[in-house]
């Protein structure tokens, strides 16, 4: 199936942070991965990088030691290689440029990735997240909302899903009419419905209002949304763009709703910048991340100048605004930006996450991404550059949403069922193209490609390994895990932190490695073990009692006899007193409570127990960069996700076949 395209010996891998530790090894190029295998070290260290993870390749000026090659990855890993021969370096460079920019979907890794699941398992995996089930969970269809088939065969809007939920009073005529008045025909449709007070979040694209255009059906559509919430006499219309941008659009025949034309709307701008500003901002922040031992000045100035956290804050502020409107005022909200597939997706999903505790569970979070991003036509292919395309289309839109979730997790550490690792792995796979979930730009394209028949679902993969993604602080019965999260109206800037776990996670020794949550996982494990032990002891006790009863008759006879012989009965295997019981336990493979000194009763969390920390969160282990022993396992993600099953997947086959 696959072969090494190239193999170069004596390549040096530089450690960005310390020039001392350059590792010597061999570089392999396969159809799917770049692999660096370190020479001779006892633990053969390896780095696997999927071609689709490569964001840029830079060939630097040749030096005495060789020709440096810099590979920047979309998961923020930076790999610096020095290749002895200029010619080799050039070949690798040219090949990688081609390999990192596939032109056909079929070239992507998910079409060759095979986790050895049969057809049925594959189908089951795709069924894990079911959006109809999700709308049912919200309580829909009901008296106010229904499913509409107006977009079957993608007749009205090709970037929308076939099944769309709309107000009952919105007829097909209204929907189609409204769609003609909306950019790319993305008419208002339901994103989230709040059972308790009937308030909803709907989404659309901008209206084609220009300076004065009107559309009766669109006005009726908004009216219908308002009527679907009997508790309120107006709706908010939230334009997530800065006012300036929206106004500029009017000159192009687009724009925003005029409050005078629509009855009972309250219009609100929320200034989230466009994809170009965001792309630029991330670039600036990554430059700060790449600094070698940044000073406070470098870091703080760089961070502020990048504006990244301000953009994150803007998205959060918008989400909080909508969540408050829905939860506290009971008012429905229509959200749009320009096309309604970037900022709108961000804002709707942040608001849903705040409103509904279900989305803060692992399953719920998958559903949320599937609903607000995948089904509503977020342009994954364009934004994350899966296929070679216009670089101006690339922007870290979903990365920003994922970071918003992390920021919320930092503020509310007990409110989420999943941990940071879960987010990092999802981010990784949005770029990896190892699973079919995030391929293409719309549902229509995915159906045409028959994605579900030809690739596997990430959600099933994550679900299978869900134990790895649990937040030990989460409890389903805890009050914070139920109901709406209440961040401050507009949390201040200091609450937003730089996410080194994401952007600097590949830097060894750049941050402390032991997070409190990892520690807690260990405590939790210990608790569980104690419970298990308790159970075993109980059983044992019950058995002993039983046998005691059975033996009693025998024993009384024995006792009489031993009295005659002057012998003690304590060497009998029965426990009559605690002391005897504990004596007895010495042969029993457990520690006995009588031995429990303070060391036992306190938690034993020594270095031994926690020596190896988590690969992704820690930036400590080599595993996070896919470095593992090639002979026994290979990373499933071509990067950072070593897991039990991955050792058996096709990667290994690929390697051994050569």
């Amino acid at each position, binding site marked *: 199936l696959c072969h090494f395209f190239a193999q170069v010996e004596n390549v040096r891998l530089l450690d960005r942070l310390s020039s001392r530790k350059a590792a010597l090894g061999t570089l392999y190029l396969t159809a799917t991965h770049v692999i660096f295998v370190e020479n001779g070290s006892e633990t053969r260290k390896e780095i696997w990088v999927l071609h689709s993870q490569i964001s840029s390749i830079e060939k630097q000026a040749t030096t005495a030691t060789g020709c440096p090659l810099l590979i920047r990855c979309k998961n923020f890993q930076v790999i610096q290689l020095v290749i002895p021969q200029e010619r080799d370096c050039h070949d690798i460079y040219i090949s990688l440029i081609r390999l990192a920019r596939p032109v056909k979907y079929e070239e992507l890794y998910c079409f060759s990735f095979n986790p050895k699941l049969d057809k049925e398992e594959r189908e089951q995996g795709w069924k894990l997240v079911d959006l109809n089930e999700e709308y049912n969970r919200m309580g829909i269809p009901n008296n106010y909302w229904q499913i509409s088939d107006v977009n079957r065969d993608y007749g009205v809007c090709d970037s929308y899903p076939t099944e769309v939920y709309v107000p009952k009073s919105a007829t097909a005529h209204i929907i189609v009419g409204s769609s003609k008045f909306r950019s790319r025909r993305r008419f208002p449709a339901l994103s989230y419905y709040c059972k308790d007070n009937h308030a909803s979040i709907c989404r659309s694209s901008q209206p084609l209002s220009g300076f004065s255009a009107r559309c009766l059906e669109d006005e009726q559509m908004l009216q219908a949304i308002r009527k679907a919430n009997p508790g309120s006499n107006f709706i908010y219309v939230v334009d997530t763009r*800065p006012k*300036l941008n*929206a106004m500029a659009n009017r000159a192009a025949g687009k724009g925003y709703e005029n409050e005078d034309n629509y009855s009972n709307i309250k219009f609100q701008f929320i200034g989230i910048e466009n994809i170009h500003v965001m792309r630029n901002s991330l670039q600036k922040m990554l430059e700060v991340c790449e600094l070698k031992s940044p000073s406070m000045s470098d870091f703080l100035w760089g961070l502020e100048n990048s504006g990244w956290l301000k953009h994150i804050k803007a998205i959060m502020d918008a989400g909080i605004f909508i969540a408050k409107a829905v939860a506290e005022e009971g008012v429905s909200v229509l959200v749009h930006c320009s096309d309604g597939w970037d900022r709108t997706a961000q804002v709707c999903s942040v608001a849903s996450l705040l409103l509904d505790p279900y989305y803060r569970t692992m399953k719920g979070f998958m559903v949320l991404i599937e609903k607000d991003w995948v089904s509503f036509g977020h342009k994954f292919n364009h934004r994350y550059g899966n296929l070679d395309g216009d670089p101006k289309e690339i922007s870290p839109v979903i990365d920003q949403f994922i970071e918003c979730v992390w920021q919320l997790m930092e503020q509310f550490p007990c409110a989420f069922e999943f941990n940071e690792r879960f987010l990092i792995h999802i981010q990784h796979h949005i770029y990896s193209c190892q699973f079919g979930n995030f391929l293409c730009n719309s549902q229509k394209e995915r159906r045409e490609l028959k994605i579900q028949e030809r690739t596997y679902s990430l959600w099933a993969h994550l679900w299978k390994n869900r134990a790895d993604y649990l937040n030990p602080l989460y409890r389903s019965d805890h009050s914070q895990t139920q109901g709406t999260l209440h961040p401050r109206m507009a949390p201040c800037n200091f609450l937003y932190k730089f996410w080194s776990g994401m952007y600097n996670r590949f830097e060894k020794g750049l941050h402390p490695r032991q997070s409190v949550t990892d520690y807690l996982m260990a405590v*939790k494990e210990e608790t569980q073990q104690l419970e298990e032990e308790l159970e075993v002891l109980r059983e044992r006790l019950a058995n002993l009692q039983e046998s005691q009863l059975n033996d009693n008759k025998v024993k009384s006879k024995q006792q009489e006899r031993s009295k005659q012989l002057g012998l003690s009965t304590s060497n009998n295997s029965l426990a009559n007193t605690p002391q005897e019981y504990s004596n007895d336990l010495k042969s029993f493979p457990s520690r006995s409570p009588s031995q429990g000194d303070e060391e036992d009763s306190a938690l034993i969390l020594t270095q031994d127990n*926690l020596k190896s920390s988590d690969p992704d969160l820690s930036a400590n282990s080599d595993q996070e960069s896919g470095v593992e022993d090639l002979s026994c396992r290979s990373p499933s993600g071509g990067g950072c996700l070593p897991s039990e099953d991955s050792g058996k997947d096709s990667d290994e086959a690929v390697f051994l076949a050569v």
Partner: protein
Amino acid sequence: EIQVKEPIEKEVNPRLLPGELLLCEASTVYKYIQEDGSNRGTYGKLVCTNFKISFLDDDSASDDNEPQFKNKIVDCNDITLQCVDQIYGVYDEKKKLLTGQLRKYPEKLIIYCKDLRVFHFCLRYTKEEEVKRIVSGIIHHTQTPKLLKRLFLFSYASAAPNNTDGRNQTVMFETLEDWRDELERTKGNVKYKAVTTNEGYRVSEKLPLYFVVPICVSEESILKYEGRGIPIWCWSCHNGAALLKMSAFPKEQDDSTAQTQKAFLDGIYKTISKPPYELLKVDDLSSSLPSLQDIQTAYTRFKQLFLIDNSTDFWATDVKWFSLLESTNWLEIIRRVLKKAIEVVECLERQHTNVLLIEESATDLCCVISSLVQVMMDSYNRTKLGFQSLIQKEWVAGGHAFLDRCNHLRRSDKEEAPVFLLLLNCVWQLVQQYPPAFEFTETYLTVLSDSLYVPIFSTFFFNSQHQKDTNTTGESLNTQSGPFRFLTVWDFSVQFDPKAKAFLNNPLYAEKPKPDKSQRKTTRFKHQRQLSLPLTQTKPSTKRGFFREETDHLIKNILGKRIGKFINSSDEPPNSFREFYDSWHSKSIDYHGLLLPCIDGPEIKVWAQRYFRWIPEAQVHGGGTIAIAAKILDLMEEVQSLQEKMDEEHCQAISGDVHSIPLLRESARLSSLFPFASLQRQSVKPALPTSTWKDLEDEDELVKRDDEFVDLSGDTS
């Protein structure tokens, strides 16, 4: 109307400590609720005593639910006189700093506290003579120079019952024994000795009665320059290398004096560089670290970010948060100090070199660096007792001039510098980077920083041991009470009840494993043998095995230079500091071994608990690190109760009753500002901050090149 007022006018009296005297008071003072710009607040009485300024709420019945974390000495509406930073008066909406005599009395009083609280009192409804009395009283007692003997410390000590039950185990370093024990503990007693030369303060009033010097240093040389130029021992490393400090000679005008001093120093250096002493590295901290003046300036700017008058000001600063933070330079100073400490650690640990820290008086930055080095290298100092003993050794006995540096007596602003706070800030960085390595929590450090301003403890209210000694026995007028018996801050039960004290202990502290463990391990449950994290791969770990470490050392030492060149083929000069730092960070952590902080920009953080705790805008309901802490405490209780249950099952052989698990803390009901500020209401109406978006003007061109235009051509409608 009078009848309506009457029920409110019930007598509210301040709770006074022994020795505390009411000096002046004013009624119908209106205290604004800090959190919002609105004029909400409560009426009450403002009093000033010889210990504190206190606001007494008229309807104090409202606080029926006792807070979980309460300071028994200083209540939330109390400000000790030493805790007052600055006082402003408001005249016709204009703020004016109040210092000395006043001609006109303000209608509003704003008090900024050193623990970063801000109080607003409105005096408009107060009788004029009461305003005069209370304002001038407060100004007089907090802003004008004071005599040492007028500190509340003395009134309290003479009035309070002598019930110090003395079960405080912190080593105070007041006796020769303490120093000898410390020498023994660190195995420094081969090359260093505790001396009694300073008994009766014959050498210097700045030095403690007893201290430790190299064995070869003679009594005469100690006496010669009042202890200047003498290397004083701080601590010995496991490999024998020692950390020393020395008070430098002042710049001498006279050439010949300078000559003899230089000769003296050369002699000292010579003796302590010879075997059995290790090589000596001298570090003059006055040139390699920021000056006290820089530190003071930086901190003054830094704290201004948190002393917030109102919401509007807060949001105005919030927009430029990171650059404002940067411009204070405070975090950079923390970073430099930590870096310096790591450099010293590297010399001691890896180069087996003695390090001699030099400073004018050897009582400021010397204390910071030597304390940090000991916290990083000696896990004993990461326990509560160890840390407290360290503060006693380096700071209290070491003669840090707390009185002057905190400006407790308001004698001179020039001497003021937050040197001890700097240490606490640095230690906090370590605590937040490696929580399991410390027996105490960040709350402990915050409480300690607050205790700097509570003048019932002697710990932080003397410039030196000599000053304390002379004032303890002193010519006290009422000799019947004998020498004063001061409290020490280390007795935290003076300030907190046991429930509150739980927040000072870190439940995740990784206790040192006992050596006799190996036997028991085998008798454990199968599943208990490895308590490991999920995702832990069974890969050969980078074990810091003894043997391997040793051989590494050998190779480095023997082949060091030649190999070094090979490896370091890059352009950079070999940087032993960086190498040491990197290699430590690439290994797994031993919480009981050497601990080095990460000092790269992203990892140096603002001590949020201390600095943000009174700012309502920074509050996260049911969130923040305290949510984790509360969760952990719950979990620990659960584990403990399971453990107890197991013991019970054992003891009573037959037992059916199952205890319910106590869940004391409802972490969702706490706010991130807990345990310091109380929970506050939130606004309900959705609204957007207006100031937030304005600052992105530099992105102009990108905004103009909006995507909204790009899409136009492809539009179908």
